[in-house]
């Protein structure tokens, strides 16, 4: 199946319902139906979002370079902080899960030894580790990264195990017939055959990491998007809360689009995928 080329008409159709909702929302705010502290008008949210995005200080040539100034806005600092935690936490979690999953998938003995423990730990949601993570790592980035790594670890692990175990026997036979064994078999046959599963694990893992980063920032860190929207609540800045939520949504969307691109590139050989 081939995706239809981008069409303005379809994009336009997709925008009708959101536009109507926003218009209704704006009308409700303008006509004073809703207390603005409960739900500010969309224009107020956009105003806040722009203020949140722009640098706090005016540009001062003496203070240094322009780019550093341009990204000194609170929103950008928060977004980069959150992204940084997701990146580091995910890299650690997936970095540990991938080799372990490959070993557990490929070797029945490793699987028998470790699977019971994995099954025992897997149902514990990463959020349940919050108290322990603060006890162990204090406040700041370390507990957040720990929780994110944990959130990314299990999806990647489970899918890697499944991916290696489901490799079609016909590929193994064909490869053995061509003389493959040991490391060549693993790197050139088993691993690529498992990639579709592994990537879907990566995708779930990043999604979990993104949830966990927001939660952990609300609890253990004093910057980042999760922290900011919780902080805004204390001042009844509902416009800033919504601006922060929209940013979280945009960031999630960007990560998803990037993952999709990576997926399509790595699986360009796979049946049923677009080029």
């Amino acid at each position, binding site marked *: 199946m081939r995706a239809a080329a981008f069409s303005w008409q379809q994009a336009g159709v997709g925008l009708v319902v959101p536009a109507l909702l926003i218009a209704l929302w704006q009308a409700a705010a303008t006509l004073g139906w809703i207390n603005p502290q409960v739900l500010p008008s969309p224009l107020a949210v956009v105003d806040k979002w722009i203020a949140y995005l722009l640098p706090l200080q005016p540009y001062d040539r003496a203070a240094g370079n322009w780019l550093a100034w341009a990204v000194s806005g609170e929103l950008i600092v928060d977004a980069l902080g959150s992204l940084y935690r997701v990146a580091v936490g995910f890299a650690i979690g997936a970095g540990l899960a991938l080799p372990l999953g490959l070993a557990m998938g490929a070797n029945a003995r490793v699987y028998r030894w470790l699977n019971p423990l994995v099954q025992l730990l897997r149902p514990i949601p990463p959020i349940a580790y919050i108290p322990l993570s603060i006890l162990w790592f204090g406040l700041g980035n370390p507990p957040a990264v720990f929780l994110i790594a944990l959130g990314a670890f299990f999806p990647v692990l489970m899918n890697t195990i499944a991916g290696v175990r489901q490799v079609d026997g*016909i*590929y193994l*036979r*064909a*490869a*053995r*017939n*061509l*003389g*493959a064994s040991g490391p*060549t078999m693993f790197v*050139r*046959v088993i691993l*690529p*055959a498992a*990639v579709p599963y592994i990537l879907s694990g990566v995708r779930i893992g990043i999604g979990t990491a993104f949830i966990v980063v927001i939660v952990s920032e609300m609890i253990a860190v004093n910057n980042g998007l999760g922290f900011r929207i919780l902080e805004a609540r204390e001042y009844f800045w509902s416009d800033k809360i919504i601006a922060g939520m929209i940013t979280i949504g945009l960031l999630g969307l960007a990560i998803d689009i990037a993952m999709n691109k990576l997926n399509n590139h790595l699986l*360009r*050989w*796979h*049946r049923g995928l677009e080029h």
Partner: protein
Amino acid sequence: MSAHIHIAGVGKVFPTAGGEMVALRGIDLEIPQGQFVCLLGPSGCGKSTLLNAIAGFAPPTTGTITAAGRVVTGPGPERGMVFQEYALFPWMTVADNIGFGLHIKGQPRAQIAATVDRLLAMLSLTDFRHRFPKDLSGGMRQRVAIARVLALDAPIMLMDEPFGALDALTRRNLQDELLRIWSELHKTIVFVTHSIEEAIYLADRIVVMTYRPGTVKRDLLVELPRPRDPAAAGFNTLKRELAQLVMEEQQRHHHDELRMAAVD
């Protein structure tokens, strides 16, 4: 080099829930170098089991198989296998699939590229070298699978109903291609099929197998001149004769299924 296949007293028993199933019993075959042999029979006659035993994927329960002077104990590069399901590696391009065996052997890159180029040309695949298997038709995929085996220059080619999934036209096309390659490269070919016409069109020798346990029912040489014409009288005489033999086994298969259904 005595690149022939020597099959002595080969039997194969599979354990099943309802006791042991004898797939092969007392198979003796001598296949001289360069002979094109078709194993013919209905499904369940053990022809694929025998081929897998020659390939070294599933060792026989009794008896021995010697190929190219060595006793078969596992898969080996002197016995290239072409599967019905193609079994191309979908994550490799056509060129990488063909070169994979040589890559495993540790051949230098330039040499692999030269062999791959030659095989691409031989099988009319040059325009497809950078494609992935998913972008190819069934016939094209099977060409790649044949090229992949030829790359290793195995003296023996084992083919498990390789053209079974192809439409009639593509099938004839590939049969002709295979005959051309065979006459050029003098391979020993063991080819499994359940198509009588395919067997007569291709083979020097046809081994008809019985249904369960698989034994040799008839072992005959095809003396018809090549290229063979499926419309010729000699072709059809042989076809009728073989059809009679295969039908007998097919009926035993059928009775067996009825009996099994009755037991259930």
